[in-house]
């Protein structure tokens, strides 16, 4: 069973389709599947719906697919870093579904775990709750009822994910805060394609320290990553 592909285009071959639903990992520009996004741009696939916490910046991340008008809809928690996004959204060219960040992460994990709906307090009494099922649970002090809303699991056609290392069977290890949405995004995709900085031989990763088992991973590529920093903040040496 060969999971390793020579490059992003080869790894996506046969998986892309106009109108499809893609879950993408990453937070801001940290841990985003930059090579796969670039290959989707080159493939020209249209009318895409993305579940992704952010929309990149104008010339990096999902932003590059906004410039080419390949995106129909975004499901995100924060899109403030992307001027082209805002232009398309305000002109009605782009649909936008805001999800609270934790709701989005849990929706991805839920879909990946075969859970089509769950209840959360997040968003109760806000616009996020409009039209959603409300239900009381006795979780307050002394069993007092508290109100929750139902959110639905995300089941994506494809997940695109960035990890630090993969072994040949697809076991993944992430690095620091670049882990973020990558595991939940990977879990909720019918197919999951992963780009890594290094593919290592099976057996080189500690079985107790694997962040995402290879069962979730269908195709892997290794490549060079720009890993752009969005806000470079430093302190003075004292």
């Amino acid at each position, binding site marked *: 069973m060969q999971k390793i592909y020579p490059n992003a285009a080869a790894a996506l071959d046969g998986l892309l389709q106009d109108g499809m639903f893609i879950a993408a990992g990453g937070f801001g520009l940290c841990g985003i599947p930059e090579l796969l996004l670039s290959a989707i741009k080159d493939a020209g696939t249209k009318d895409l719906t993305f579940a992704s916490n952010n929309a990149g910046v104008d010339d990096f991340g999902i932003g590059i697919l906004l410039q080419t008008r390949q995106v129909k809809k975004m499901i995100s928690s924060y899109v403030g870093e992307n001027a082209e996004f805002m232009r398309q959204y305000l002109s009605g060219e782009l649909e936008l579904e805001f999800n*609270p960040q934790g709701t989005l992460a849990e929706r991805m994990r839920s879909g990946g775990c075969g859970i089509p709906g769950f209840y959360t307090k997040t968003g109760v009494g806000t616009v996020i709750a409009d039209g959603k099922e409300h239900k009381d649970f006795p979780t307050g002090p002394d069993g007092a009822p508290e109100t929750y809303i139902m959110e639905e699991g995300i089941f994506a056609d494809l997940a695109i994910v960035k990890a630090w290392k993969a072994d040949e069977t697809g076991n993944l290890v992430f690095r*620091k805060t670049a882990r973020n949405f990558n595991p939940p995004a990977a879990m909720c995709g019918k197919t999951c394609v992963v780009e890594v900085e290094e593919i290592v031989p099976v057996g080189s990763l500690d079985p107790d320290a694997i962040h995402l088992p290879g069962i979730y991973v269908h195709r892997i590529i290794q490549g060079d990553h720009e890993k752009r920093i969005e806000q470079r903040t430093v302190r003075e040496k004292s």
Partner: protein
Amino acid sequence: MWDRNQMAARAADELEDGWYVNLGIGIPTLVANYVGDKDITLQSENGMLGMGPFPFAGDENPDLINAGKQTITELRRTSYFDSAQSFGMIRGGKIAAAILGAMEVDEKGDLANWMIPGKLVKGMGGAMDLVAGVGRVIVVMDHTNKHGDSKLLRECTLPLTGKGVVDRIITNLGVLDVVEGGLKIVECADGVTEDELRAATEATIV
């Protein structure tokens, strides 16, 4: 009247030894400078407990950022996890307190801090999850807007981030708690009288 740093210092007094805390952007970020000897662990909701200070120039790591997308560092106690786990601990009440900014707060503890209709909407990020989930929500904000109008209202006018979620409000004029029936003055800022604080507050003070 308190300045930004005094507000942050006052907010730091709210934190107890051993707490895990989430700090929002703006004045709340400054709170980290005033925790002193207390053992406080900062969460960054993009997947980290034990957030350290900014790196020295040259030590920036693109794989290590905070929820404001700024480069940061790790500590000896640091742990990393994914976003589902991160918001699991937020939603599950494991974070003792969040200190957040606000556009408006009202006397029922409603909070508005994510959108102004008709203006550019960037999204709520993790704010709705935080106010719904953490043990204690402390808002740090200016008492009035630039027109001198109170931001502590009878009822929020902006779309809400959370309903009945705020526990305590720290402003440049003082400290107020959300209680049954309205807001209760806990203390006035240096040089501010209770009358001045009342006059600057639209919300019912009980």
